[in-house]
């Protein structure tokens, strides 16, 4: 593994003596994930060690495992590879089980048949597939003893590979599940296009069966991530910037766990009709009723006409939010709902879902809007630097603030599915308390970032510190590992 491919989620902050342009570029690519202002490392609940591998690196890694196994138990490499694939690449386990009962392991891995057929030794036999009489030398078969002519094998492989089957190709006999190893396929298949496809599909299968490996889900990205533990941790692909969960491969979702986020996303997709009306981008000012459009990520709104400060989510007075934010992010269930009619319960369930969905959706939108804020900040800094009003280093803190804001809001967004599925009780109360705290600080930070140039630098950095602390507290207390 090349050293620069090694990575860790909470990287060191960039040193300032590097080429500044280069530095800025790196910075953009890092998506702000390495922007740990507080340098909390040892007890950072999100830190995770992983490597980014190229296809060649992965091939080397797999081949090493195959070689080791071949040496240990003396089987052909192609068989060893399929054996490892079938046994999830647990080499030590495979070696132990092989030594204990090799034929059982081979049967369990579908590399040997449950019962072997007597091979007929006559010079001419009928191929059971094409039903032609064939000389023995053009017939071949696997450990099960079922023999077919090479033409038939070739067509069988072509049809299977066409439908993306590779490591799962079986013997052609009825009810025979013996798998065909790689070298057998490659001996028979001559068409270079089909060979390439086959090897590509095999590679995909090997990576998917390997507990330490996962393909980057980014579009057209061939990077493979390697981590020793299959945990629900954040992985950022340096090639394409995709940020995802190592355990399930979808967008990173702390503090929500893999099963819950899957359930939530399925629910959102199923209920998209119901939730459609929420996508409104305008609301009326609760005081003077002028129509207000939301064009930034911040949920602390100020009416352009009457200057009334209010909350975009609940339309409550912003002044009371500092102390009572709790009331905005927490859903208040009807305490008597168990005694209500089925109809009322269904309505209540929908109301509850929409409450959480609206907030989830709103933060997702805010994140997009904050992307624009980030672009604006970059442009403004460029202008300033061009006009000799300071250097990139002088204005770096503005970018830091915008990146941190994105990171905090991202976590905040993912607190809503967590809260939705959390059972009532003291744990939920604590979660909602911390969520409200985080929400308040994120909005404060958002407000200040949007007005960054008129905000005092110290004040802004202080706000960053508070927001990140709130985020880390929540993640540390509720991220189940």
């Amino acid at each position, binding site marked *: 593994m090349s050293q620069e491919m090694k990575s860790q989620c909470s990287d060191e902050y960039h040193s300032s003596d590097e080429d500044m342009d280069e530095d800025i570029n790196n910075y953009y690519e890092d998506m702000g994930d390495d922007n740990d202002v507080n340098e909390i490392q040892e007890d950072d609940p999100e830190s995770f060690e992983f490597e980014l591998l190229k296809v060649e690196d992965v091939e080397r890694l797999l081949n090493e495992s195959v070689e080791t196994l071949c040496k240990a138990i003396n089987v052909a490499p192609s068989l060893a590879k399929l054996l490892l694939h079938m046994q999830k690449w647990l080499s030590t386990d495979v070696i132990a089980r092989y030594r204990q009962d090799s034929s059982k392991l081979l049967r369990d891995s579908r590399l040997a048949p449950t019962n072997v057929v007597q091979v007929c030794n006559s010079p001419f036999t009928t191929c059971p597939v094409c039903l032609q009489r064939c000389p023995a030398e053009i017939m071949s078969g696997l450990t099960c003893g079922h023999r077919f002519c090479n*033409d038939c094998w070739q067509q*069988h492989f*072509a049809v299977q590979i066409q439908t993306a089957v590779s490591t799962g190709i079986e013997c052609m006999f009825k009810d025979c599940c013996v798998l065909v190893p790689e070298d057998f396929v490659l001996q028979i298949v001559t068409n270079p296009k089909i060979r390439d496809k086959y090897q590509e599909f095999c590679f995909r299968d090997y990576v998917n069966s390997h507990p330490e490996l996962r393909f980057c889900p980014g579009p057209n990205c061939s990077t493979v991530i390697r981590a020793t533990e299959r945990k629900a941790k954040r992985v950022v692909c340096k090639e394409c910037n995709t940020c995802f969960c190592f355990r399930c491969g979808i967008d990173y979702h702390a503090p929500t766990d893999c099963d819950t986020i899957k359930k939530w996303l399925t629910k959102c997709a199923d209920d998209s009709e119901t939730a459609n009306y929420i996508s409104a981008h305008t609301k009326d000012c609760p005081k003077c009723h002028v129509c207000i459009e939301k064009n930034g990520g911040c949920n602390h709104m100020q009416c352009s006409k009457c200057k009334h400060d209010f909350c975009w989510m609940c339309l409550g007075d912003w002044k009371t939010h500092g102390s009572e934010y709790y009331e905005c992010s927490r859903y208040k269930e009807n305490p008597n709902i168990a005694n209500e009619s089925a109809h009322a319960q269904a309505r209540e369930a929908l109301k509850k879902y929409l409450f959480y969905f609206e907030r989830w959706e709103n933060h997702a939108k805010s994140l997009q809007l904050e992307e624009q804020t980030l672009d604006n900040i970059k442009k403004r800094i460029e202008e300033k630097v061009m006009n000799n009003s300071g250097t990139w280093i002088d204005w770096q803190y503005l970018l830091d603030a915008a990146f941190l804001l994105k990171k905090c809001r991202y976590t905040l967004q993912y607190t809503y599915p967590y809260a939705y599925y959390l059972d009532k009780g003291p744990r939920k109360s604590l979660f909602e308390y911390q969520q409200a705290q985080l929400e308040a600080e994120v909005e404060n930070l958002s407000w200040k970032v949007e007005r960054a140039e008129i905000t005092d630098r110290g004040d802004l950095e202080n706000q960053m510190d508070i927001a990140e602390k709130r985020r880390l507290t929540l993640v540390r207390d509720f991220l189940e590992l």
Partner: protein
Amino acid sequence: MANIAIQRIKREFKEVVKSEEVAKCNIRVEPKNDNFTELRGEIQGPPETPYEGGMYILDIKIPETYPFNPPKVQFVTKIWHPNISSVTGAICLDILKDQWAAAMTLRTVLLSLQALLAAAEPDDPQDAVVAKQYKENLEMFNTTARHWANVYAGATKREVECDSKIQQLKNMGFEEHKARVALSTYNWNVERAMEHILT
């Protein structure tokens, strides 16, 4: 069609499908056209099943990639069975999908279908309505299946009560097959069947 597919089908006809053994099991297959891409199959309803005495016609299409891909088989004769669509005749059977093996033949397919008629798999249904009846009211299912076998497959055992209920709906101006489907679906409850046709 690929050379191997034609060769294989021709040999199947010569060596397998026309064998005495096949005749004994009461299955038959014959080509519909000269190039053997479409065949007509026949299986007899197995004894001691609601399909006993019925003759079921199958539509068999041989894909270009036969025998490396399975033949496409559908019931032409209407049948009431959890794994066969009562509407289209489509079949849910593993060997016609991912459990197909190139060494299987049309004979294997027809015999497997015959076995399917004798032992339904309601947990892997093709027709949800039929499967539900099978699981919830086996006696009702057997009656319905026998009635369909009598009407569509030429089985001799008549279900008099079913016939009279269908006649009842026919007298009211409803089309016969529509009436049969509705009655079969609603466990031969005339009122609910009518309600269903009218909505």
